């Protein structure tokens, strides 16, 4: 019996060590997911914490799939995702008693980039799909140099990878030749080093500290088809009108109605101050329709 008492005492001592540091103040809001969104949400969180002393928010990347899994496994409060949920994720959430509510906090004009030395200026969606599926392998096919196209993309746990696969590749497989990079920054580095490279990155990653397009890269204009004009992802009006074909909403998801702390933060993100930051960081602000849906989901 003495031994049991010793064990229980030691166990209780160990338990006391496990108490969360954040339990002293407000509960820390855990946000996880999309690498495309990690920077913008981090900046939003920092501003929010400055305006609301005592608020604590931790933002982690890992990819949209990682964030969605974390929400399903109840290890985060908000999942950042740059693609819609897959059916198997919706099914798993249902099984585990998770009822996701979705919020659109920004719109990303996904940019197709090449090295600035590449003479190509525009592509159609069909051409872009054929390049990434590995069906067209030489820049010559588009009037460019006689050089093999070098493909840069994301890893499959990235929402950007899935978005491009669904919307550009027609749900077909990527070419096995594609280099699967860990993040947007690595794709940009790859394109800077590779004159024959093509890559896709969130529009927010195109700019340097002065808010100018980074030196050494070129953003291609994209057309829906051969009969349509090509648009740049930097053309906000074209993105808003839906004319730029590689644009996507950036989502956050919560499990059911968000708690008060979480709802306050989301309200800040979709409010005027948050949207100013969204615009400043190179993303597009949300329209009236998305704002109304967000506000409905906050209640």
């Amino acid at each position, binding site marked *: 019996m003495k*031994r*049991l008492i010793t*064990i229980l005492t030691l*166990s209780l001592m*160990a*338990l006391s*060590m*496990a*108490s*969360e540091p954040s339990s002293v103040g407000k509960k820390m809001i855990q946000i996880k997911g999309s690498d495309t969104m990690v920077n913008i949400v981090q900046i939003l969180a920092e501003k929010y914490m400055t305006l609301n002393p005592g608020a604590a928010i931790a933002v982690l990347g890992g990819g949209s799939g990682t964030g969605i899994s974390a929400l399903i496994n*109840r*290890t985060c409060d908000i999942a950042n995702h740059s693609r819609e949920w897959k*059916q*198997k994720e*919706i*099914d798993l*959430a*249902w*099984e*585990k*008693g*998770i*009822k996701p509510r979705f919020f659109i906090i920004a719109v990303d004009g996904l940019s197709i980039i090449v090295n600035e030395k590449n003479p190509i200026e525009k592509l159609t969606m069909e051409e872009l799909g054929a390049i990434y599926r590995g069906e067209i392998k030489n820049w010559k096919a588009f009037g460019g140099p006689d050089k093999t196209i070098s493909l840069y993309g994301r*890893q*499959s746990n990235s929402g950007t990878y899935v978005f491009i*696969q669904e919307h550009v590749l027609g749900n077909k*497989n990527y070419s*096995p030749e594609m280099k*699967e990079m860990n993040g947007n920054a690595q794709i940009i580095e790859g394109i800077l080093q590779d004159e024959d490279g093509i890559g896709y990155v969130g529009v927010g990653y195109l700019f340097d500290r002065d808010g100018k397009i980074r030196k050494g890269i070129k953003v291609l204009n994209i057309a829906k088809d051969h009969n349509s004009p090509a648009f740049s992802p930097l053309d906000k009006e074209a993105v808003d009108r839906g004319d730029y074909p590689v644009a996507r909403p950036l989502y956050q998801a919560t*499990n059911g109605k968000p708690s008060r702390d979480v709802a306050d933060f989301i309200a800040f993100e979709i409010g005027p101050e948050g949207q100013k930051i969204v615009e400043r960081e190179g993303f597009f602000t949300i329209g009236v329709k998305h704002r109304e849906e967000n506000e409905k989901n906050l209640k």
Partner: protein
Amino acid sequence: MNEEKTQKFKMIRIFAFFLLFIPCFAKAQQTFNTTIYFDYGMFLTKRGPLTSNPKSNYLAFRRAYFTYENKINDNLKFRFRYDADNTANITSIDFTKGLTKKDDKLRPFIKHLYFEYAGLLPNSNLRVGMTETIQYKIAEDRWGYRSVAKTLMDNYKDMTGVDVDAPSADLGISFNKNIAKQLRFTFMVSNGEGYSHAEKDKYKKFAANLHFIPIAGLSFVGYIDYEKQDAENSAMTYKVDGYMEMVRKLTIGAEYFIYKNDKNLTAEMERFDVLGFSIFSRYTVIEGSLSLFARFDLYEPNSSSKSDEMNLIIAGFDFSPWDKSMKIQPNIWYRAYADKAKKDDVIFNITFFLSF
């Protein structure tokens, strides 16, 4: 000579087949994972069937898994898992004296070796090879403490002397499909021998489960399997599970099964059944670092006997003070027996769980 040539040709074909796969593997996403459980155990009673052993406290490795997964493309995945335990370690046999030597080293064996293909039908997957069986995988996921104890059908098969034919992996084919978010099913055809033995007869085991989730977080699972044992005899398992995960941080689960095997006969040559019931719960106190768990099992290895029933209560907590890859899971087991001649067993374990 001809036979030798044929053999050589076969080898070349197998080698060429693997060469074909190498470029796919080279481009694929590969992950490696290791999970280890070990215990510091203490007997808090001294006269039960388990605790009358001369040892009264010990450190023991129970399991070490090494898993390699290779996502070849969005639809195709390959998994290889080595498991290691020390349950069958005969190291040498002296035929002249009829003696065997045994040690307790952890030795690896193949637990999983399969391909998974997700593109056959929407929201489905097909597994081919040595793959997880479907009797209690859902229960094991909900219980979540395989490191502390196996689930009901898995836990007693080795200690009662009555085999319930419930291996956790087997060589065969399984197909899973989500029909709607409320309904999914799995079907499996396998050797029926499990991962420990090679197929010994021409009969295959057929298993199916139906998973119904009427409202988010509330699940019911029905399971049935059938395998012919020989020309006259067959075996069947019926199982029903229920799980509730609707309340934040709380999981409650229950399992009930009956195993019927025509070869399980009493001295009077009447068939007896094996049955069991288990209810368990876990509650997260601090997300990511502290959870509580408890379980109650009732196990009846022989339905015709009233003296062999046993009960088990397990309670403990799961504590990750530094990182979720290192968990300390102190737990206590209280085992009681219907047979009055058997004294209760009480064992305290500090289970260490490492995953990296």
